[in-house]
């Protein structure tokens, strides 16, 4: 149990995928203009990340390893992720047309969210077992959601703030992201072994 808690804390705060490992920056900058879309994107990504983490693990453990095809993991994982995203898109479209409209192009773009592939590959590298993989994927998604929602809340305020002319728009967004990243790196000493 402690191990799962440690994995969660590690992925959400200490090794946050976006701000510490710099994976998945594209949706981080792209969908954070409005809190509402950020929230929807977080939900979709959480679902996809957890599911794809589990599926990638299963594919690796029960298909690639027995056949001695570990070197095919990248292409196999990309296939898995694409399928999971497509599946999510169908489910979202059926269950929540509004969320589907709001997410728009960003839903298929989860496929190219490198955090998703990153989680799958890091699972292999860290030799996680099934439950650890699931928790790792879920934790990574939680960390992504946390950061995305915090960042979009900040950007909503920034939109109304009196920012100097040359810094308006994406520029101040980048600077804010940098500062947030600095802050999150402060979590590095959170747990001592």
């Amino acid at each position, binding site marked *: 149990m402690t191990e799962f808690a440690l994995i969660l804390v590690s992925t959400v705060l200490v090794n946050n995928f976006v701000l510490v490992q710099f994976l998945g920056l594209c949706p981080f900058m792209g969908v954070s203009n409005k809190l509402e879309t950020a929230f929807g994107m977080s939900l979709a990504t959480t679902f996809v990340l957890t599911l794809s983490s589990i599926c990638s693990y299963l*594919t690796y453990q029960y298909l690639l390893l027995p*056949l*001695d095809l570990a070197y095919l993991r990248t*292409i196999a994982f990309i*296939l898995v992720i694409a*399928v999971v995203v497509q*599946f999510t898109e169908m489910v979202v479209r059926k269950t929540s047309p509004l969320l589907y409209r709001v997410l728009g192009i960003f839903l298929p773009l989860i496929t190219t969210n490198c955090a998703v592939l990153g989680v799958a590959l890091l699972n292999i590298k860290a030799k996680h077992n099934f439950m650890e993989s699931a928790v790792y994927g879920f934790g990574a998604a939680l960390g992504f959601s946390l950061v995305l929602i915090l960042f979009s809340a900040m950007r909503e305020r920034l939109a109304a703030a009196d920012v100097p002319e040359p810094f308006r728009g994406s520029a101040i967004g980048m600077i804010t992201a940098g500062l947030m990243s600095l802050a999150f790196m402060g979590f590095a000493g959170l747990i001592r072994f």
Partner: protein
Amino acid sequence: MSVVITAVLALLGLAAVFGAILGYASERFKVEGDPVVDQIDAILPQTQCGQCGHPGCRPYAEAIANGEAHNHCPPGGEATIIALSELLGREVLPLDEEHGEEKPRTVAYIREAECIGCTKCIQACPVDAILGAAKQMHTVIVDECTGCDLCVEPCPVDCIDMIPIRTTPKSWHWDLPQPGHRLIATDLRGGLQS
């Protein structure tokens, strides 16, 4: 050589399984029609008055879904605009005055003594709320009338008045649960009011 064949077969098998899953999912989660249009249509007041520039509420719902402004509906007024803004995640706009202003809900009333039975108002009514036949007196089914004003113009003897109605303790009713299929207004209120 056999390594390559295993690799290709493994990936092929994987792709085939995933293809089957997606194929099943696309059947299972098939979307019929455009649900957003249905949701917008449910919010619009269904007066079918055409003041928004579209031939009815449904076409306007489709136009909104395709990006038209959602403040062109005077009968719905502010409440409809707010509900649409919430549904679509757009900003709340004031009613566009080009399309008319918000008035209290009215119903048509035919002064029956003056009616000559020309049936012109029957043809104009978008919701079939006027009863009558040629050379017979006409009358309005109050429950069905949406107060759209379309029957006032064609009347050759100007015997139709638009009477504002207010919800009184007598006319107030519970909203019945919405059934899956569309009903006429009388059924929604659980029968004709006396």
